[in-house]
């Protein structure tokens, strides 16, 4: 099957896509794509850095080291640090349950995992306010025990977790379904305990997909605005995450500072993208060497 496949691939790449006019069509399409990317992606990105640095490097440095900004950076990182590991564990558990077992309500669980994708983040934030806010369902109980959730770190973490929980599971479910459970069952018949099977067989097989899911979760957790905005209360230096801090500065007409902080977020995002590209490159390499293993007809 190997040689047949490569032959097939070569054939399809060599075959001209259209006819003689395809060159014009191709150049046209590429030009449209590049123009579009330039206007909606490249231009704004450049502008962020241009505005951030228009007051000079000194102003930039001042803006990003200002106490409120530092607190926002810390809060954003802390939130990601709590939300991402929790969602990773949840995502792996959910993906495993869905990919490996048949149980009543499986369809419902799959739908529930997608809810954060479908629901507006603002609604997610409101939901937590309705639950834990001063006049919410648990408001009285929380006040009695002197626990603050809304307008505090727990609320921000909860809202972030809600918005980001599909990423890991969504990444792993198709991967685990394609890989099947034979390797795991083999490990069990060879005497491995459930934990040994997970650490030695399952985890190494899903590691790239898992990394990818974690990266997406991290990126979204640091950039989330809507849900966090509703539950945070915008208290400067206390409950402002980076995206919220940008908005606050912007509304105060502190353009340079606003763009300076925005450029920080952008840098985080670019770093994340860089890691993602690196992982995709590594995955492609791993896939290329593993593709032989798959039988024809097995969906990847």
């Amino acid at each position: 099957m190997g040689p047949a496949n490569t032959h097939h691939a070569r054939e399809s790449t060599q075959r001209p896509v259209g006819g003689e006019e395809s060159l014009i069509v191709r150049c046209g399409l590429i030009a449209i794509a590049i123009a579009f990317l330039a206007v909606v992606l490249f231009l704004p990105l450049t502008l962020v850095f241009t505005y951030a640095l228009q007051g000079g490097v000194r102003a930039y440095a001042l803006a990003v080291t200002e106490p409120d900004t530092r607190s926002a950076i810390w809060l954003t990182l802390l939130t990601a640090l709590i939300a991402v590991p929790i969602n990773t564990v949840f995502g792996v558990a959910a993906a495993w349950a869905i990919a490996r077992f048949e149980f009543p309500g499986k369809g419902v669980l799959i739908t529930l995992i997608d809810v954060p994708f479908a629901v507006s983040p603002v609604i997610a934030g409101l939901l937590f306010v309705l639950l834990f806010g001063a006049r919410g369902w648990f408001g009285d109980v929380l006040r009695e025990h002197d626990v603050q959730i809304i307008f505090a770190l727990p609320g921000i973490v909860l809202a972030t977790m809600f918005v980001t929980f599909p990423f890991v599971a969504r990444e792993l479910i198709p991967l685990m379904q394609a890989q099947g459970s034979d390797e795991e069952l083999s490990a069990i018949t060879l005497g491995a305990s459930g934990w040994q099977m997970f650490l030695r067989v399952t985890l190494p097989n899903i590691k790239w997909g898992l990394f990818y899911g974690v990266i997406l979760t991290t990126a979204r957790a640091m950039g989330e605005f809507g849900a966090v905005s509703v539950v945070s209360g915008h208290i400067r230096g206390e409950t402002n995450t980076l995206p919220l801090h940008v908005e606050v500065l912007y509304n105060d007409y502190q353009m340079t500072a606003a763009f300076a902080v925005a450029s920080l977020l952008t840098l985080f995002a670019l770093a994340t993208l860089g890691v993602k590209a690196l992982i995709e490159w590594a995955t492609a390499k791993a896939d290329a060497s593993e593709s032989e293993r798959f039988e024809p007809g097995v969906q990847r």
Partner: protein
Amino acid sequence: MSIALRNIHKSFGAYPALSDVSLDVHAGELVALLGPSGSGKTTLLRIIAGLESPDPGVAGRPEPEVRFDGRSIIGTSVSGRGVGFVFQHYALFRHMSVCENIAFGLRVRPRKARPAEADIRARVRELLGLVQLEGLAQRMPHELSGGQRQRVALARALAVEPRVLLLDEPFGALDARVRADLRAWLRSLHAKMKVTTILVTHDQEEALEVADRVVVLNKGRIEQIGPPADVYHAPATPFVCTFLGRVNIFSHRATLGEPAADGAGPPAGLRYVRPHEMDIMTDGLDADNDRMHGTITHVNAAGPVVRVELRTDDLERVMVDLTHERFRMLGVARGDRVLVAPRDARVFQDGAGI
């Protein structure tokens, strides 16, 4: 180690995968579970391994029993049963080298029972020799051919010294030539190891060639158990007869025994005749109860026997296998009109199965 199965039922939803299966496998035996897809053979294998559990007994049906050496293992976990299971698609750990794949079962043992590193290495080397893969220890699974992967899977299963070896369509994904080689190799490996082995296959040739005994399954029931020669030459049911090799079925003229003395007609049945039990005649005999007139439609002499196909005057298609000697003697060719007759036949009651 011997295996005893009693009253095994298994349903997936409303679909009965196994109905009332009982089976004994003797110590050191190599048994093939043979049947078409959906016959329940893999389910039965997975129940022995503990990957599935049989349905519990209900009113009027006794509890299922799975015994290894007489001891019930129904409640024993998969890892506690000491079975070696080889999957159809090998299921090698894709991120581990051949060596690490084979060593896996030893490495996951609790610290007290785990052999020393040097012993593990020695054992892996020994197993690599057994499956004739010396020199490939550091390869990754994707760098091996299908036949090599299957042998690694076997070595990995044997590393933990299983009391029973369960093979699920072990050669199903390989091409015909490799399959034939591996069959012979498995036979000799089994003769060397003497591990009780159960092999699942849908390939009758494989089952007949490799196994000491063949268990023919159909629609979740056992049709026949017996040595290969028995199930081939003395099939117990029409299904076994048609599933194990090619067969001509004559729908008429067949009689069950001699006409009764009181003149009542004998019960009608279907006559099952294997191609090699048919003969062709060219002299001018008349057609009768056994002999039929027909025209040769196809001749294939490329093989150990000459395969001849005929169409009778009643438009039945008949397959005849002749020895090359007999074929030369007859001197017939495509388009010739000849007489064809069974030398031997099995008669099954009409509608008695299939």
